[in-house]
């Protein structure tokens, strides 16, 4: 399973990258699989943003399954009070993507 992730940081900067689930550290991969279920992501994407909140972060996640017969799933999420668990996993994934891009150990 490949994950494409784009995060608009809320400060005018967009981060994006992709990573295979198999390339994530084991603990993180397990957490990703447990948290980024279709049910959780659908609920998280439905979370309503606070209309007064400015500079909120925005997230776009596309999950490409290994099985070519399965279709990719795309989700758009925004900072909200009731989807933090999912967003924090996405933050961790982006951190891992950036870390690899920068060649950090």
């Amino acid at each position, binding site marked *: 399973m490949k994950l494409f992730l784009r995060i608009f940081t809320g400060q*005018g900067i967009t981060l994006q990258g992709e990573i295979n689930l198999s390339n994530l550290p084991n603990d993180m991969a397990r957490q990703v699989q447990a948290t980024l279920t279709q049910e959780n992501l659908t609920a998280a994407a439905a979370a309503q943003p606070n209309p007064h909140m*400015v500079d909120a972060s925005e997230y776009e996640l596309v999950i490409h399954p290994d099985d070519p017969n399965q279709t990719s799933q795309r989700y758009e999420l925004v*900072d909200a009070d009731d989807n933090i668990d999912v967003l924090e996993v996405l933050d961790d994934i982006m951190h891992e993507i950036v870390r690899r891009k920068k060649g950090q150990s």
Partner: protein
Amino acid sequence: MNSHYGCCHPIQCILPPHVVEAIKLRGDEEQRKMAEALAKQAEATRESRQEATPPDSFLAAPVLAMGVAPAVNREVYDGKRRATLPGTLVRAEGEDPVDDPVVNQVYDLTGDVFNLYFDIYRRNSLDGQGSTIVSTVHHRRRYNNAFWNGTQMAYGDGDGTLFQTFVEASVVGHELSHAVVQYSGGLVYRDQAGALNESFADVFGSLSKQYTLRQTAAEADWLVGQGILGSDINGVALRSMKAPGTAYDDSTLGKDPQPYHMDFYLNTSSDNGGVHINSGIPNHAFYLVSQYLGGYAWEKAGQIWYDTMQVINNPLATFNDWADKTVEMARERFGAGSMETVLTRRAWKLVGVDL
């Protein structure tokens, strides 16, 4: 309720999304519920897009000058890297510094922003009524952002790679100035109105830093977020008001996309219609006015921009609406033939906003 939308059942008339946003932003509880119902209906149908303007009931009272001494009231909370707000209170107004330098920095920088608004514009705190300024530091894990959520500030620590911190003078001033916009009648956070909201926050974020350092327009760096990027990032800040589009150019972050002129205005659906991108245009106009007038930017240019925010009363304002009002405010305060008025108009022309 104003007859404009009282004419029909909420879910039977679909206002343009930006008007619904205006209602959600400025309406009372009942109006906001109505707006949310409208938004859901719009989601379902997405057909009618009739033009509308916000009803008179959205009028917001200008902030009044205070004749009493200021009494800043700050509370800084430790989020302990969790998402729950506000967290644990670690420093209240008048208390001694604590061991955590981030807490003390936010406490001090928040005071600097309060001082600018009170000393120069006679505004008593964010709401003009002396409200407590609540901030949470260490928000979430490796969180690459800072925000105003309608009631308080929250600052992430950054991931240490792309961002080292979000506790920096112009960033703190920026976020708190979003609150000033909210309490001044608001600007819908979308398209040109949203870019003006962002620009106002950048302008007063920068002015807060300049006022604290007592820098003239010529001495200021005109950067927003100077020094917050990671050490390996090729860039100096989030944005440059002096030279929009030049703040960073990095393999991970990409290139600063801000335009300085309407010829390069970016029509996009992302970033709420490019609010952090097209804000470069009014940002640069403010920079130009400040340079033309010289001296301390908060004195004249800042006063014109602040006056404009207080009277424009249009949450859907375009760049032209805002520019028109800045010239009007310059004329009212400094005179029709004054250099302030002439040069404000000239600055807008130079960024492609013809009046």
